[in-house]
């Protein structure tokens, strides 16, 4: 028996080491960080959101793009905590800063970089990712190649800054060097109780790819500002696997 437990311990330790070597960093505070993500949490390797890595988000229309912005803002909020600073880099900024406070981000802690030339965009995202003082860098791009994304991922690994890359309406879903690929789409809301009208934001969160984790799809609700509680709807297709990474 003893040898068996020893073996198990050895195997888990080796697995953790392999993960580390593969570039999956786990936040030191992942216990606190984890509480917010609800059911999505289990999909990550070792049950912890990978920080210091690139996350790729894909949106194909305006609705998805807005939902993705909200979800990214929520993630950035968890990464920033009380005193973090986030860089939001993009060509055409549509994000409305006051709305970020609904997702637990202090809008004055977000620095928006409005890039005018496309050739500067990736350079700026990379430069941001190299700055250890930042908690997160959100980049909005349209097209990105594998080589360019590899540079960004390496910058993340060196500085331990988390990068959230939002690919808006890309022409092709080409693979990029990111630990996760997400797709967030809005879902119809339900009024609170008997009241008509619009309730809390609801999203269909699809984790299309995750390195060493379990891809999946969840129907979640962003409930009350600052409070991240994700509840699954009473639908039969709960936790259904969509696509393996």
């Amino acid at each position, binding site marked *: 028996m003893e040898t068996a437990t020893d073996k198990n311990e050895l195997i888990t330790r080796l697995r953790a080491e392999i993960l580390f070597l593969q570039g999956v960093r786990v936040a030191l505070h992942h216990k606190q960080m984890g509480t917010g993500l609800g059911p999505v949490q289990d999909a990550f390797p070792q049950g912890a959101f990978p920080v210091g890595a690139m996350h790729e988000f894909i949106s194909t229309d305006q*609705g998805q793009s*807005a939902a993705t912005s909200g979800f990214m803002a929520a993630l950035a909020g968890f990464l920033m905590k009380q005193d973090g600073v986030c*860089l939001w880099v993009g060509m055409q900024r*549509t994000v409305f*800063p006051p709305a970020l406070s609904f997702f637990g981000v202090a*809008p004055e802690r977000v620095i*928006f970089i409005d890039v*005018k030339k496309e050739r500067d965009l990736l350079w700026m995202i990379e430069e941001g990712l190299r700055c250890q003082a930042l908690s997160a860098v959100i980049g909005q791009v349209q097209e990105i190649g594998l080589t360019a994304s590899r540079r960004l991922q390496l910058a993340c690994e060196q500085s331990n800054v988390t990068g959230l890359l939002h690919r808006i309406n890309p022409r092709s879903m080409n693979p990029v060097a990111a630990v996760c690929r997400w797709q967030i789409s809005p879902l119809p809301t339900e009024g609170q109780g008997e009241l008509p009208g619009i309730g809390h934001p609801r999203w269909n969160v699809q984790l299309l790819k995750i390195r060493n984790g379990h891809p999946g799809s969840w129907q979640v609700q962003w409930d009350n500002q600052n409070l991240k509680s994700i509840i699954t709807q009473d639908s039969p297709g709960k936790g259904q696997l969509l696509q393996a990474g």
Partner: protein
Amino acid sequence: MARYVSIWFPHLTTDRLVLKRPELAGTSFVLASPSRGRVVVKAASPQAQACGIVEGMVVADARAVLPSLEVIEDDAELAEKLLNALAKWTLRYSPLAAIDLDDGLILDATGCTHLWGGEMAYLKDIVARLKGSGYDVRAAMADTIATAWAVCRFGKKERIVAPGAQLDALLALPPTALRLDQVSIDKMYKLGFYQIKRFVHIAPSVLRRRFGQSLLDRLGQALGHVHEGFAPIHPPEPFAERLPCLEPIRTAPGIEIALQKLLEMLCSRLVKEGQGVRKVILKCYRIDGEMRQVEIGTSFASCSSGHLFKLFELKIPTIEPALGIELFVLEAPVVEPLGEQQDQLFNIGAANKWVEIAELLDRLVARAGPDISHRYLPAQHYWPERCTLEAASLKEQPQTPWRTDRPRPVHLLQEPQKVEVSAPVPDYPPMLFRYQGEVHKIKRADGPERIEQEWWIQQGLHRDYYTVEDESGARFWIFRLGHYQDYNKPEWFLHGYFA
């Protein structure tokens, strides 16, 4: 033998005002400031003086003399500021220049005049240039400061007092020319001493008994028996470093090495003086006589050579060395005291983080030009376009909390986009709307939230905002501009997307 030049500006402040406001030239105006409950003339233009308005007069009296008199508020520190600037300018005539409040300058011209071809030419050049720039000016030269001062202000014709001839120059001047206090001067006029020659030969013990030691001191200073202090100005040394090269430099690594050396020299001086640069210019003088320059700016005062080098590194490829660069000059035209930022530089922790971020932003700005980075603070407006305020600096914190009592879209369109709607009854949310050829059937809606125009800023119609959700779950922020009326249907606009 020392030689001094005294320069006198009889209308210093008024001349300056005429330079700034040319429409005042040739008019009667006074500079006045309140004193003891009335407004007193501090300086009068030559035209006003011709009407009998003098310094120290009450403005009400002056207005009685000249009803069309223009009264301008006086800046008490202006004279000193002007004199300082003029003293810096006169350093071209002598390395030692001092200001002589309230309206003069003193130059130590010892050994300088031969460069202008003699004392006469020297003095003429000073007067001509200052008059050319718009100031009424008189100047005189003598062996002592006091004599130069007296001849400059009271001398009749001869402006240059020959070496050792102070006494002759002074004889015909009034006692006021000795810079005595008012009590002594009054006493002298009472006794009939209208000219210096009346009392200069009286025995010192008698003069001391009557007028005190100060008269003897002043006389001694004028004649050169008593030393008079001279406090020359010390102009700040500009922050600039030069690096001449033995061999012309043609490669990027060569430029980098030169730049690093210059930055280290500059930064070590900055650190010593507790200053930081906001702007640095690198000038590269090439052997073909051309000059190339690159410029960087920082968002906070910095004295870190590493950071400044990183900013320059982005610009080095734009320097064209051609046949080679023989001289590098690094100038820092904008320098600020480091102050609190210096503490932060050496603090590890949260404050250090801001420095790192500021350095990052500097790099981004150096690459893509200014106004690419924005940070927003809440502004107390309901109108969506005006509810954020750009933060002036990285340190600025919000004065008011962000409002979260009303839903606001995560994406806001720059310009509201017109949509076609079909709404059932006035004041109800629309049933469907069409935007860019796509029809969105509305399943759920909240609103209206009426936001009125802020009439003190802009005139226009109010907006009634609705939060609507279509059958796919996408959420929009749309508004109706104005009221329903009999004769026209109001327009609807899409203004944002909710998450």
